[in-house]
């Protein structure tokens, strides 16, 4: 289509020019390239047009792709999520933005009852992506820091993606947009502009398939299964543990929570015989439970120690720095947990 032939603006040409991109820029490039690739792809959300989104992820897209493909919606999470489902039925590929993922809760019924069950009910596929900034460490308080992944984790029909690197974010978002099932795509806002995450991405078009975990760090003494921001906290912990304790920690980045890459977890646990699950979400009902269950079902005999977890406290997310710092799992917690498990 015509738009594809136009030259890209600077801010989405970084990879093309071999320059490193941030986590946010990788997501922006994925959206831009998908809009160029497939005329069925379009965006909806609040303030994603003229303003380019609260975090500027969709900057410049309205100007390039027009108001029929980059739609500024009323404040109506139920409305635009449902509209996306209707469009998806008709062969479109809607990508909707929750200004903050916390507000996905307003569309909970539409997502779990309508979208997730559509194929099963015989109402056709519902290929759509719901994305938005999630997570803490930014003093956002109870409603701008949430990790609502587990609210959807037990809803068959959904896919849940929660990447930790720029490369995965771009490749997984493209895969999500091209796939035939609904995908919830969580973007940890603490990662958006972290300089440490800047990397040069493949110049060519690539996708990272959903449902496959990634070994973020190889190790033989103990396995940490984690995702999103906690991948980087775990990495910090692993380096401390290597230096101070000579421990060789393996880190599995789930990347996709649903479907869960059980094989990757089990394979690693069978080698290390020790498992720590680390998640930023609150403890009770967090994904650590499901993982512990799967490992019990499939690798119990290989466990030399209990499956343990490091997670946020069982409370809403507080705003004030001392409270948020205490509430959230920190690198030091991971270090302590690994030491405990290693000496079990």
């Amino acid at each position, binding site marked *: 289509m015509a738009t594809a032939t136009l030259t890209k603006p600077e801010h989405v040409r970084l990879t093309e020019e071999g320059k490193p991109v941030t986590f946010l820029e990788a997501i922006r490039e994925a959206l831009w390239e998908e809009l160029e690739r497939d005329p069925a792809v379009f965006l909806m959300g609040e303030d994603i047009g003229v303003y380019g989104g609260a975090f500027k992820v969709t900057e410049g897209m309205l100007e390039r792709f027009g108001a029929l493909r980059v739609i500024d919606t009323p404040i109506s*999470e139920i409305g635009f999520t449902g509209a996306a489902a209707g469009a998806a*039925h*008709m062969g479109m590929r809607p990508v909707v933005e929750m200004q903050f993922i916390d507000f996905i809760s307003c569309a909970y019924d539409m997502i779990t009852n*309508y979208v997730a069950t559509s194929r099963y009910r015989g109402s056709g*596929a519902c290929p759509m992506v719901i994305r938005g900034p999630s997570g803490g460490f930014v003093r956002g308080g109870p409603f701008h820091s949430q990790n609502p992944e587990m609210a959807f984790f037990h809803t068959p029909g959904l896919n849940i993606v929660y990447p930790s690197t720029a490369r995965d974010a771009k490749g997984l978002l493209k895969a999500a947009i091209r796939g035939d099932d609904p995908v919830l795509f969580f973007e940890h806002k603490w990662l958006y502009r972290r300089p440490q995450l800047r990397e040069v991405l493949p110049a060519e078009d690539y996708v990272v398939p959903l449902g496959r975990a990634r070994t973020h760090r190889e190790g033989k003494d103990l396995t940490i299964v984690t995702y999103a921001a906690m991948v980087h906290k775990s990495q910090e912990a692993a380096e401390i543990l290597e230096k101070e304790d000579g421990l060789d920690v393996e880190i599995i980045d789930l990347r996709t929570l649903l479907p869960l890459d059980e094989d990757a977890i089990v394979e690693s646990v069978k080698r290390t015989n020790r498992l720590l699950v680390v998640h930023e979400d609150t403890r009770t009902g967090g994904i650590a439970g499901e993982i512990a269950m799967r490992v019990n079902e499939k690798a119990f005999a290989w466990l030399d120690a209990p499956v343990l977890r490091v997670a946020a406290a069982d409370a809403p997310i507080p705003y004030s720095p001392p409270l948020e710092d205490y509430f959230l799992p920190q690198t030091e917690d991971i270090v302590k947990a690994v030491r405990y498990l290693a000496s079990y």
Partner: protein
Amino acid sequence: MAKRTKAAPRAAAPPHGLTREQLLEMYRFVRLTRALEEKLETLFKQGRVVGGLFRSLGQEGESVASAFALRRRDDGTGDMLSPLIRNLGSMLTIGTKPVEVVRQYMAKGDSLARGKELNIHITDFQRGFIGQISPLGDLIPVMAGVALTFKQRGEDRVAMVYIGDGATSTGAFHEGVNFAAVQKLPLVVVVEANQWAYSTPTRLQTAARAFVDKAAGYGIAGEQVDGNDMLAVYGAAKRAVDRARAGEGVTLLEVLTYRRKGHAQHDPQTYMDPAEIDRWATGNDPIDRYVAALLENGWTSADELRAIDEGVDAELEAAVDEADRSPLPEPEEALTDVHAGGPVNRPWTRLDPPDPTQA
């Protein structure tokens, strides 16, 4: 096919540009709707229906007449609608076959929902219907999205969605209508003011004088019509559909009618006034009124109508027999179509021998 006797010579021209054939087609649909529901009620009493049964007695006219205003195709190029449990008439009109409906109520494996979903919660994009789900109001945003796609692609197609008086109280209704209004989408929202939401009377549902009064709050066109006058409903629906097709956006069409049966078969309607039901039944039945109009205006004859009735009865007999012969689904089909990939895992206890490592 019903045999055609020539119409009386002094027949006035049918309104709204309808042809005599169309008038009879509408008659056939409304008759088919009522007869099918009566059949289903019999099946229900015989215990051959799985789950509940909902009647639209007294509302068949507005269902048929509103859907009749749509461009009906079976190749995926026509208009689209999404019905409520009480819009069997709309479904038959847009192209659902009676046997498909009976299979649904019998939970058969070859029903459109393959036994996974009930009622007329069924979808066929070719014929242009999308099944509702139980949470009320959700199909308003969804059909707004369908209409959005029509607009994005520059197709001159129209989406119609039904909503009960009760369901206008839902947030989904509000967000969906508002979204469609702002985007000026080709959407017709039919508000079925049948005066009851289960046992809840309209005065406990809204303080508004009329549902059509909501239109101004969304900046859309609104019209209120006698829902038991099929020709009036058709006319209003046609105007709304034409506006939508012409790019003039959303219409809220309030059809005034009355739910003569209980919410479902299990509801004894003790909260309703029998005299009121009777008034609607005797003085204001949509089929009686339609037949009277057809005959008085000389658009058809009693013979012609009787022939149609007989055709309907024959079709329904066949439909029930056919649905009866349909198989129930295979148990393992419970695991298919959850997502694009293959079926989901079998419970490990169903494996032989049971094996949790294979679950």
